[in-house]
């Protein structure tokens, strides 16, 4: 799958070497083959709208006339009274939950319109997310002060006082972590399976009001008023990456459920798309690389991205929503909202978009937004037993929080430990190139006394004389090799840089290699 090298594969002159180019080409070929295999065995094909150029975006009534009756549950409107609503789908796409600033919390299966629970908590609720796996769904709701977790019947299971004044909640399914950004500028990561707080710290970057989760890596992205995009991980108390992405403040950040695209809406009402792996802009429109951003007039700062890259955003100050195709500027679809739009959420695995507004919530059909072929048991039609099995497997495969890292920073389980290898090589080189210690060179043998000591002393003295000559030769050859290896070699070996060595490196010519010592293999070969 994709690495930072693959991004650079588009520009071959960016490849560090032929080896990397070949590796990238092989990876691209394997990806194409995998995609072909996937498409050949695919059960479903994605949705879409085929319209003639110049045609207006279709309305919901027009869509409903052209699709099967089975699609009708995806289009509904609920008029509710308790304030602007936030909506959240669970990972299977079966359950929809809502919470309103007036204290209304509810969850229901949106296909059958079967209500799971509905309650009035008498506190303003700002954000919500489904936590846990599909077999025992739990709902985390950020009230005005603390965060509460409710079960499928609406019973309050937990009150998380640490997640204080949270304005956004995120669920990391592979790590079983509940992440929260708060108005006080704190970030929290809470393990839902063991109850342990993995990280909880103040970011010291002001209140974190604009945030999104990058699902592929588990990092939290926040947009700052100075136009920076910060990437946070639980192990670092400071942003791991800070990227300037807008000339004005960042008003909204959104990520696709899978992939490397990050959408930012700046104070200049421009939507920009970034590649989080290399922190460079991705082209917004398919017309060309010139369109680095598109202008969204009067856009309210809520963005949602679907599994297939469709982007939904409110327009006309929240009076309507607009759906843009992947990499396009011409809207695919638009829909008026009865109240001012407060939240948007695409349903995973389905061509449905839910929106919450000041007067309730609604759901519209968006052909082509859902991924048609899921993998595993996380899809709307999985049975109870399959979801239970998937939950157990998910718990067994729970990833440790150390794996949460932005792709731009690199590393990962299969990354080559280049630093470690360099260190080991340097140590080996130092061991080989260690100069004979002064002690050894200046050792004087003990003079013996007694019978036949004169002869013995003479022999021992001669032996040591020979040894000292050998050591002197060894020292000379090592110094010469050090000089030829250059400054790098000298540093690695810890040897002294002699004047001779400097001259050699400045002249750039290699001296003739010596004969007969094992150090010859360290002398760099002339190309």
């Amino acid at each position, binding site marked *: *799958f*994709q690495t930072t090298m693959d991004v650079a594969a588009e520009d071959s002159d960016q490849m560090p070497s032929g080896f990397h180019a070949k590796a990238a080409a092989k990876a691209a070929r394997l*990806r194409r083959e*995998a995609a072909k*295999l*996937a498409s050949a*065995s*695919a*059960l*479903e*094909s994605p*949705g*879409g*709208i*085929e*319209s*003639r150029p110049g*045609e207006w975006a*279709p309305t919901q009534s*027009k*869509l409903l*006339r*052209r*699709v099967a009756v*089975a*699609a009708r549950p995806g289009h509904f409107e609920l008029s509710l009274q308790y304030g602007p609503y936030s909506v959240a789908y669970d990972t299977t796409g079966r359950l929809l939950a809502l919470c309103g600033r007036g204290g209304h919390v509810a969850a229901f299966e949106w296909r059958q319109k079967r209500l799971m629970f509905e309650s009035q908590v008498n506190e303003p609720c700002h954000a919500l997310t489904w936590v846990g796996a599909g077999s025992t769904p739990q709902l985390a709701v950020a009230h005005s002060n603390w965060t509460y977790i409710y079960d499928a019947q609406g019973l309050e299971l937990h009150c998380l006082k640490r997640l204080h004044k949270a304005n956004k909640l995120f669920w990391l399914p*592979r790590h079983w972590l509940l992440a929260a950004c708060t108005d006080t500028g704190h970030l929290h990561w809470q393990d839902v399976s063991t109850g342990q707080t993995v990280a909880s710290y103040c970011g010291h970057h002001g209140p974190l009001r604009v945030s999104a989760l990058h699902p*592929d*890596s588990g990092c939290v992205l926040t947009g700052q008023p100075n136009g920076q995009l910060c990437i946070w991980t639980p192990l670092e108390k400071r942003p791991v990456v800070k990227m300037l992405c807008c000339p004005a403040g960042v008003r909204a950040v959104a990520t696709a459920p*899978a*992939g490397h695209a990050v959408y930012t809406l700046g104070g200049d009402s421009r939507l920009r798309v970034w590649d989080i792996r290399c922190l460079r802009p991705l082209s917004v429109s398919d017309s060309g690389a010139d369109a680095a951003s598109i202008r969204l007039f009067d856009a309210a700062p809520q963005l949602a991205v679907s599994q297939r890259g469709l982007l939904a955003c409110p327009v006309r100050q929240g009076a309507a929503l607009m759906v843009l195709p992947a990499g396009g500027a011409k809207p695919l679809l638009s829909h008026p909202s009865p109240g001012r739009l407060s939240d948007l959420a695409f349903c995973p695995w*389905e*061509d449905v978009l839910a929106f919450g507004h000041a007067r309730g919530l609604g759901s519209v059909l968006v*052909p082509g937004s*859902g*991924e*048609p*072929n*899921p*993998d*595993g*048991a996380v899809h*709307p*039609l*999985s*049975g109870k037993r*399959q979801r239970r099995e998937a939950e157990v497997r998910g718990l*067994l*495969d*729970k*990833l*440790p929080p150390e*794996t949460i890292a932005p792709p731009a920073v690199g590393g*990962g*389980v*299969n990354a080559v430990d280049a630093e470690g290898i360099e260190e080991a090589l340097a140590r080996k080189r130092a061991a080989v190139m260690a100069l*004979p210690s002064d002690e050894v060179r200046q*050792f004087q043998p003990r003079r013996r006394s007694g019978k036949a000591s004169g002869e013995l002393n003479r022999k021992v003295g001669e032996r040591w004389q020979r*040894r000292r000559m*050998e050591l002197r030769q060894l020292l000379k050859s090592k110094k010469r090799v050090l000089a030829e290896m250059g400054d790098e070699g000298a540093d690695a070996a810890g040897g002294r840089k002699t004047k001779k060595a400097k001259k050699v490196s400045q002249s750039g010519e290699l001296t003739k290699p010596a004969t007969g010592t094992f150090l010859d293999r360290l002398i760099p070969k002339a190309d």
Partner: protein
Amino acid sequence: LFPVLIDQLDTHWPMKVKLLLRNPQDYLRETADDIHKLARNPAPELHPMSAETEYVRALNAAKLERVFAKPFLGCFGDQGDQLSRVCMHPRALSLCLSGCVDGRVAFWNIPRRSRVLQLDAHSGCVQGLCWHPEQDLFYSCCDTDRTLKAWRVGDDLTEFSRPVSQRHLDFAPLNLDHHVSKDLFALSGDAVYLYDSRRSDPVGQWKWGSDSVLQARFNPTEWHLLAAITKDNALLLIDTRQREPLRRIRCEFRQNALCWNPQEPFVLATASDDYNLYSWDARRLASPACVYRGHTNAAMDVDFAPTGRELVSASYDCTVRLWESGRSQSRDVYHTKRMYRVFAARYSLDARFIVTASADFNLRLWKARASEKLGASTPRERAAVNTAEALKQKYAHHPQVRRIVQHRHLPKRLYQAQLEMKAIRGKQRRKEVNRREHRGEDKEPFVPERDRHVRGVDE
């Protein structure tokens, strides 16, 4: 008018809309007897962090292997005196013989761990035990009464007190081995004697030097080849077609036991008094092919698995170690509070079990693979086990995985003994390095490990 206009608009602007709609029948099983359907999409976008997930699975596999690692199966019951020999039946999986220091020979049923038969075979220590390869006949020899006795075990396995045949020897036999197919057996005493069961006098005799021969074993594949270990720290290679032994390898320490590799005709392994095992390539005897280091006291016995890929060794330090052929670090170590000096260890014929005989008068049964499930496995279980093995191998170099896979708990005295051995070796290496630095490479050349243990090879 309004509805008509709409229809007219539609016909003028036909738009093709496709919405993603799933048929539940494609995702649900048809009957309750079917297995559940599982959707599959190998696209990498749906599998982020797959390397990390695999790594976590490898870690879990390593941990579970240790959780299920319970190799000890049971004890065969008190024999009443120290056991000197164990001999597995060549054709039946569940039978083995044990020889005692007080001359008793017992016949065991391994799965039931029960004694089928017990004989007062000799008046002294049973020095040799071996089975006839085809007949239900076994031989035992003793050095005190200098006899070689043949016993027949019938189908009804009733107690009987007299051997089928008895041969008085004019030397004290120290060990016994039968040929894999011919009616020959080799006795070792003051020399290596080759006897034919139909003849009263030895057919061949080989000797090198004046010291006694401790053990002689036939090569299971090369029928004319014999290997023998002598008391003066030597290993002999004998061809029965020649009058003199082929080679003599003079080692630093005495070899206590020897075993030929059943799958590779030229490989043999010896257990040495210098705490090591050595495997030798008969074609190149100048140095051992591999040095197996790990025991903290003399290695008393060694046996190859029938696959030829694994070794088991019994040691005077009260442990049994399992090795992979060619790897000098042991794969596993078995120890028990009650197990004292282990004198014999044998693999079962299916390479799944190990029988050990120790100085605490007991025979013990162990699993060769400590976390193996005994009993029938479903195909899914086998697939899961194979996947776990593959994952562990893939991530074997990662420090966390390696730490769990390699670690074995040892009792305090054994752990301290291991640290002591490490300290001794470290000191020896440091001294060598210092000497090399002072005296020079030519006077103190670097000698690789495997060249340090052989004094010389004589032809």
